[in-house]
């Protein structure tokens, strides 16, 4: 699916991801975690890569393979590598009542793998991957 870079559009993304993750076989908690990770990734793109420009495109695709559920989010905004953000020690971080950086923490906590790819023509892909542990092979 494709959306414009507006946080109001994330509702459609949440529904799209939720339905696909459910259909793939994830339980309710895992579905919620995946939806939240995608929500955070898209929010980061809108805020940091597109700097709130509302007419830019974000493309979201899902690829599945056996136990692997992968969401690929493509944009042409400023490159942003989630791995470049240092993950804070949460108790110390929260004791100081800071509030930034939580989105990245949530993304990494919710998914099994996060990959970042910089492609030609200023295209950036964020790959969010989750494995279904108990999927019965058919």
């Amino acid at each position, binding site marked *: 699916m494709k959306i414009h870079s507006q946080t109001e559009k994330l509702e459609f993304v949440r529904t799209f991801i939720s339905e696909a993750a459910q259909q793939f076989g994830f339980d309710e908690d895992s579905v*919620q975690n995946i939806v*939240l990770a995608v*929500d955070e990734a898209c929010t980061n793109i809108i805020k940091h890569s597109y700097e709130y420009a509302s007419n830019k495109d974000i493309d979201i695709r899902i690829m599945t393979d056996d136990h692997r559920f992968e969401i690929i989010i493509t944009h042409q905004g400023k490159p942003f590598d989630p791995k470049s953000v240092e993950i804070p020690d*949460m*108790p110390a971080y*929260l004791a100081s009542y800071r*509030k930034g950086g*939580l989105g990245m923490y*949530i993304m990494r906590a*919710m998914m099994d793998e996060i990959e970042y790819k910089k492609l030609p023509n200023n295209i950036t892909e964020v790959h969010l991957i989750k494995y279904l542990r108990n999927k019965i092979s058919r």
Partner: protein
Amino acid sequence: MQIKEKMENDVAVLTLKGDLLGEPDTSKVKDKIHSLVGDDVKKVVIDLGGVNYLNSSGLGTLIAALTTTRNAGGDLRLARVGDKVKNLFVITQLVKVFDTYETVERALSSFKTKP
């Protein structure tokens, strides 16, 4: 998102209904907290029973609200945190930062036993 406010003695109870995902809702909550603290109401209970979905912006707003009330010499306590939101609190370890209660009444009582 809707915010309902009710005073119980010197404690404000804010009941949130809807999702807390970003602007303009996050500003509504922040403005409400600042307004209460400005009126010298420093003890606040936020009833999250009507909130199904929260993301990092929503969590950040709650952290900001906690900071504002504690810096003013008061506190913020949470009531009726639903399973989905609780899951997020556990993952982000916010359970260690916020005092949470099963009911609004218990959250209110906590201010008597632990002002």
